[in-house]
């Protein structure tokens, strides 16, 4: 008799637990299963709270009457992972940036500027149209702004803070953060335009392989003919502008607009990807800026004025020069305005 009562009591309890689990607003099927297991454990190990703490540690959603983003998560374990990933990645990135600057300095001291071998003819060829130049410089100014402010925000704590002190660095960081957050969306708008505009000239063809095998003659000083864009420029275009640029745009938007209730984990992943892509892009841009200014006379003028000397065209982009001369590329070869002619 007594045993029967016990059994009935146990069955009643079990059904009550099931009902409670089914009614509970905070539990779905998996949580209900967990809760049931917990109930069973409370019978077998009456004083053991371990499953509760395991569940809390897993970062699972619970219930709270405080409304807000993820307020129902008691402990989010991803934050530790994010910290563990970000801090060493930033350190590696910082050293990579410094190493790149040193390598460029070393290259400059070793090779010096890559000057023309022949004499300038004084005859100018149009290399970039006005639209191309405007888009290039819009992207360039926004990118450099984002790069510099990004570097300040990421490495300022270790590099600038000890030099200029807390108050001044905080001001600098506030300016950097706001510039970064407001200039970022500009890049999101102009970068796709640049990709579309420069895509055709950057499609790979068989000649690029020749250029690559000889390293563009960068180290040997050998003359290697190239198209309007050489293989190095094409690689830079597809990796830096397209892949890294678009990655930075997407992750940047996730981080810049936290008002869409994206979870912390989404933002942590976006942040780490943004950090990696940002450092790589800054490193690549450094090399690009070096070659576009001090590293190669004539390159900066090409993007500023849109025109290059025929000798420059022949020595750096011979295939393109030949095509222009043959009239194969109609856009180029306009008569250069007087102001663009070398004195």
């Amino acid at each position, binding site marked *: 008799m007594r045993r029967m009562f016990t059994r009935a009591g146990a069955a009643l309890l079990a059904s009550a637990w099931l009902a409670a689990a089914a009614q509970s607003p905070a539990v779905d099927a998996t949580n209900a299963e967990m809760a049931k297991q917990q109930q069973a454990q409370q019978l077998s190990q009456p004083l053991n709270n371990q499953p509760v703490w395991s569940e809390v540690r897993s970062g699972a959603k619970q219930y709270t009457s405080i409304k807000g983003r993820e*307020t129902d998560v008691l402990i989010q374990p991803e934050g*530790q992972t994010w910290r563990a990933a970000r801090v060493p990645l930033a350190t590696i990135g910082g050293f990579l940036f410094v190493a790149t600057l040193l390598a460029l300095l070393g290259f400059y001291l070793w090779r010096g500027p890559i000057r023309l071998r022949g004499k300038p003819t004084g005859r100018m060829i149009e290399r970039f149209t006005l639209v191309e130049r405007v888009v290039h410089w819009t992207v360039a100014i926004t990118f450099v702004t984002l790069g510099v402010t990004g570097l300040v*925000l990421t490495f300022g704590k270790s590099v600038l803070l000890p030099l200029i002190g*807390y*108050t001044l*660095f905080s001001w600098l*960081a506030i300016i950097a953060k706001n510039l970064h957050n407001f200039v970022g969306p500009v890049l999101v708008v102009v970068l796709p335009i640049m990709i579309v505009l420069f895509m055709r000239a950057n499609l790979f063809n068989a000649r690029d392989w020749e250029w690559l095998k000889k390293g563009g003659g960068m180290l040997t000083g050998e003359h290697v003919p190239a198209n309007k864009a050489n293989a190095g420029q094409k690689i830079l275009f597809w990796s830096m502008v397209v892949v890294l640029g678009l990655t930075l745009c997407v992750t940047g938007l996730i981080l810049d607009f936290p008002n869409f209730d994206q979870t912390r984990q989404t933002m942590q992943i976006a942040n780490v990807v943004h950090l990696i892509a940002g450092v790589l892009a800054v490193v690549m841009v450094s090399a690009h800026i070096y070659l576009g200014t001090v590293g190669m006379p004539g390159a900066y003028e090409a993007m500023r004025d849109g025109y290059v000397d025929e000798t420059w065209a022949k020595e750096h982009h011979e295939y393109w020069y030949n095509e222009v001369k043959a009239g194969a590329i109609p856009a180029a070869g306009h008569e250069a305005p007087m102001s663009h002619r070398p004195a």
Partner: protein
Amino acid sequence: MARMKFLCDAERCIECNGCVTACKQEHEIPWGVNRRRVVTVNDGVPGERSISVACMHCSDAPCMAVCPVDCFYKTEEGVVLHDKDLCIGCGYCFYACPFGAPQFPQTGAFGVRGKMDKCTFCAGGPEANSSEEEFRKYGRNRLAEGKLPACAEMCATKALLGGDGDVLADIYRQRVTVRGRGGDVWGWATAYGQPGQAPGQAPGQAPAKGGKS
């Protein structure tokens, strides 16, 4: 020197949110910011547990480690505080914190983050103790007045304790000793009886018919 700590006894917390209210009232916290919240694990299921959580004033605080302007500092009592004048509102502390302690009053369009706000263990900020400016930015500095955090003081069941870690450990050890027969046996069942069991009945005894579930 005391090492300040919070301790929430899950066997006692009844999810009344008195601590949340006390905190809001004490510091005149703006709408949308919750320095403290109560989370219930397995809500509505027998064996549910509620815990009040805020900044835990970690020894190795993740927020401190990731802050790009190094605006966090730790007081001699182990309380993690921050300087709102230095804070740039980047949100990194919010990503890193396991407890969801950092709060951002949304001051701008598109969710632009303002200065971070979090539990100060009622210890104010870097400004002069109990000054007008300190209150405006960080709320009351109860520690400077010789008082403990308002949330813990307010707690009706004394589930939430705040104060010197050694004292809290003694209180909790005593509770555990009274509840069970050793450190491994604390739990709801010891404190309040098993489901379906009248309080005071020895655990392990058969549950009564139609009892609490």
